[in-house]
C-alpha cells in the first residue's frame, strides 16, 4: 500500500533532487520516444537542448524569446505569491502590443525623441487597463479572477484582430491584415549588431531584479509573502489585501504590456495578428518552474526559450515532426512540475491496507 502524506516541512533534499529526477525521467522518456521514430536519441537531445545555445546567433535569439516570457512571469510570480490568480498575462500582453502599436503609428512621422518612451508607456498603460478591470471586479464584487482574466485574454485578442483588420491596417498594404512598418524612432534599438537582442530583453532582466527586490527587501514584499502564506494571519496583522491585490495586478499588467509593446516595436516592427505564440500562457509555466521567484524566473524563462527554439531546430536539422517535439516538451514540463510535488509531499509504503 502506498500512501501520499503531506510533509510538515518542505524537504530540502527534494528541492535539490526534484529537478534532477525530472531531467533523468525525461531523458529516459526522450530516449525511448526518439528511438521509436528511428532518430538518434543522443543527437535529438543535443539538438533540442544544447544546439539553441551553440552559437552567438542562437544565444541572441534565445534572449529574444526569453524577454516576453520573463516579463510576464515576473509579474505573475508576484500575483501568485499574493493569491491573485491572474491567468491574463496573454491578454495584457496583447493589449500592450495594441496600445503601443497605436502610439507607434501615431508617431510614424514624428522626429521626437519622446516617441519611443511614449510608445512604451502606452503599451504598459494598456496592459494595466486590461489587468485593472478584472482586478476591480474581483476586489469589488468578489468575482472569480481566473475566469475574468481568461475572458479578458479573448477580449484583448479580438480587439487586436479587429484593429489590425480595421483602423490600424496599413493603407498601402493591399488590404492584408497588418499595420504599416513602424518608423525607426519608435523601434527598440538592438544591443548588438547582427543580432535581434533589443532593449526589451534588458527591460525583462531589470524587471526581474526589481521584482526580486520588492519581494525580498521591502515591507510590501513581506506583506505579499505573508498574504500568500496565510491570508487570515495577514489580515489579522492589519495588512490591506485590496491594496496589495491592486499593486501586484497593476505591476503584472504593466510588465505584460511592456512585453507586448516590446515585441511589436522590437523583433516584429509592425502590428500583426500573431504577436504572441502564447507567451502569456507559457509564462504561467515559467513562473511555477521558477518557484514563483523573480530570479528563478530568469532560469525558467531561459529554459523555456531553449525548448521552443530546440523544437524548430529539431525540424531543420533532423526532420523530427513538430508533433513529436511538442510531446517531448509537454512530458518534460510534466515531469518537472510533478517532481516538485514531492517537495511538499512524500510517499510512504505500508504493509496494511488502511481506511
Amino acid at each position, binding site marked *: 500500500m502506498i500512501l501520499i502524506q503531506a510533509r510538515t516541512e518542505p524537504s530540502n533534499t527534494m528541492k535539490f533532487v526534484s529537478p534532477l529526477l525530472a531531467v533523468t525521467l525525461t531523458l529516459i522518456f526522450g530516449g525511448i520516444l526518439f528511438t521509436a521514430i528511428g532518430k538518434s536519441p543522443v543527437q535529438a537531445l543535443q539538438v533540442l537542448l544544447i544546439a539553441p545555445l551553440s552559437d552567438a546567433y542562437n544565444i541572441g535569439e534565445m534572449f529574444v*524569446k526569453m524577454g516576453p516570457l520573463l516579463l510576464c512571469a515576473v509579474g505573475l510570480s508576484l500575483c501568485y505569491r499574493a493569491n491573485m490568480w491572474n491567468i491574463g498575462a496573454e491578454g495584457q500582453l496583447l493589449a500592450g502590443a495594441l496600445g503601443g502599436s497605436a502610439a507607434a503609428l501615431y508617431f510614424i512621422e514624428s522626429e521626437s525623441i519622446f516617441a519611443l518612451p511614449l510608445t512604451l508607456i502606452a503599451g504598459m498603460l494598456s496592459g494595466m487597463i486590461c489587468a485593472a478591470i478584472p482586478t476591480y471586479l474581483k476586489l469589488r464584487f468578489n468575482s472569480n479572477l481566473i475566469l475574468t482574466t481568461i475572458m479578458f485574454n479573448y477580449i484583448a485578442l479580438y480587439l487586436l484582430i479587429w484593429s489590425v*483588420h480595421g483602423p490600424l*491596417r496599413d493603407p498601402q498594404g493591399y*488590404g492584408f491584415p497588418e499595420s504599416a512598418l513602424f518608423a525607426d524612432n519608435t523601434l527598440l534599438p538592438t544591443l548588438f549588431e*547582427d543580432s535581434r537582442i533589443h532593449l526589451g530583453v534588458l527591460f525583462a532582466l531589470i524587471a526581474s531584479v526589481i521584482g526580486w527586490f520588492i519581494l525580498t527587501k521591502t515591507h510590501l514584499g513581506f506583506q505579499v509573502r505573508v498574504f500568500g502564506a496565510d491570508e487570515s494571519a495577514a489580515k489579522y496583522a492589519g495588512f490591506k489585501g485590496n491594496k496589495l491585490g491592486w499593486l501586484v495586478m497593476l505591476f503584472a499588467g504593466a510588465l505584460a504590456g511592456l512585453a507586448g509593446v516590446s515585441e511589436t516595436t522590437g523583433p*516584429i516592427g509592425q502590428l500583426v495578428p500573431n504577436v504572441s505564440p502564447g507567451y502569456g500562457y507559457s509564462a504561467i509555466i515559467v513562473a511555477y518552474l521558477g518557484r514563483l521567484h523573480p530570479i528563478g524566473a530568469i532560469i525558467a524563462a531561459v529554459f523555456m526559450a531553449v525548448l521552443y527554439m530546440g523544437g*524548430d531546430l529539431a525540424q531543420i536539422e533532423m526532420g523530427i515532426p513538430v*508533433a513529436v517535439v511538442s510531446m517531448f516538451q509537454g512530458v518534460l514540463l510534466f515531469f518537472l512540475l510533478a517532481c516538485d510535488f514531492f517537495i511538499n509531499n512524500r510517499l510512504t509504503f505500508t504493509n496494511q491496507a488502511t481506511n
Partner: protein
Amino acid sequence: MKLKSLLVGLGLLAGASIAQAEDPLKVGFVYVGPVGDLGWSYEHDLGRKGLEAHFGDKVETTFVENVEEGADSERVITQLAKAGNDLIFTTSFGFMNPTIKVAKRFPKVTFEHATGYKRSKNVGTYVLRTYEGRYVSGVTAGMMTKTNKIGYIASFPIPEVIRDINTIYMAAKTVNPDVEMKIVWVNTWYDPGKETDAANALMDQGVDILVQHTDSPAPLIAAEKRGMRAFGQASDMSQFAPEAHIFSVRDNWAPYYISIADAVMKGTWKPQDYWGGFKEEILTIESINPNLPADVKAKISETYAAVKSGEIKPFTGPITDNKGNLVVKAGYTLNDVELAQVNWYVEGIEGEIPR
C-alpha cells in the same frame, strides 16, 4: 565585443558552407500550418515531395511546419539559411517582411515568397491565378443552383479574395442571369468551426451552392449534411463529401518548385512576380463528381479548356463596379499588376468590402 567577432565569424562560416554546396541543392520550406492540414500547407508539402521525386539526389529538402507569423518566423528563416539552404520557400503572406529582412543578410541565398508583394534582389514572389479556377466554379455554380443563390465563405478582404468573388459572380452570370451572391467574412484561413458556422448561415439564407476561400473541408461536410453542393479548395477534398462535392480546384506547386530549383542550379534565377494558373498546371481541377448532370460535366471541360487556352480572360472589360464606375474599359484585359489591386465588387454584388 567578443559577441560581435563571434557573429562575424559565424557569418563567414555560413557564407563558406553555401559556397561549398555544389551538389545537392539544399532547399528549405517554411509552412504556416501543420503538413496534415489537408489544405494549404499540405499542398506545399506535396510540392516539396514532387521536387524531391523529380531531382532525386540533386536536391536535399528540409521543412519547418507550424511556424508562427510573429517574431518567430524571422528566426526560423534565418536558421534555414544558416543551415546551408541555397533556396528557401516561405509559404504564407505573414512571412513577407521577415523574408525580406533575412534575405538582406543572406545575399547568396535565393528566397521565394508565396502571395506577397515585396521583392528584392534575391526575393521573388509567386501567386496562383485562383480566379481561373473560380471561373470554372462560377459557371458550374450558375448552372447547378436551384435557388439562384451562391454562397461565398470569404477569408480576408485582400485583392485575391475580392477578385475571386467577382469572378464567381461574373462567370455564374454568363449562364444564369438571375444569380445572386451571398458573402460571409470569417477572417481566418483555417478554422473548421467558424467555416461550418458560415456555411450553415449561408444555407439558412437559401444558398444551395457553397464556394469557400478557406482551407478546411468543413464547409463541404456541412453541405453534405444538408444535401447542398460545394467545391473543394486547395486540395482534392472529394473524400469528405462524396455527394456534395462538385470538383476541387487544387494548388499544384510541384511544377513551380521544380522550375525554380532548376533555375537556381543553372544560375539563371531572377526575382520575378510569378503568376501561375491552368496553363502552367499549377492550378488543376480534380475529381469531378460523376453524379453531376452530363451537360454540366461537358460545360466544365469546355470552360476549363477555354480558360486554359486564354480564350476566356475573366477580367476583360467592359466591367462596371457596384457603385456604377467603369473599372475596366471595353476590350481591355487587366494585367497582373492591376489584378493585384482589385478592390471593388462588380455590378450586381450587393454590399461593401469590409475596410
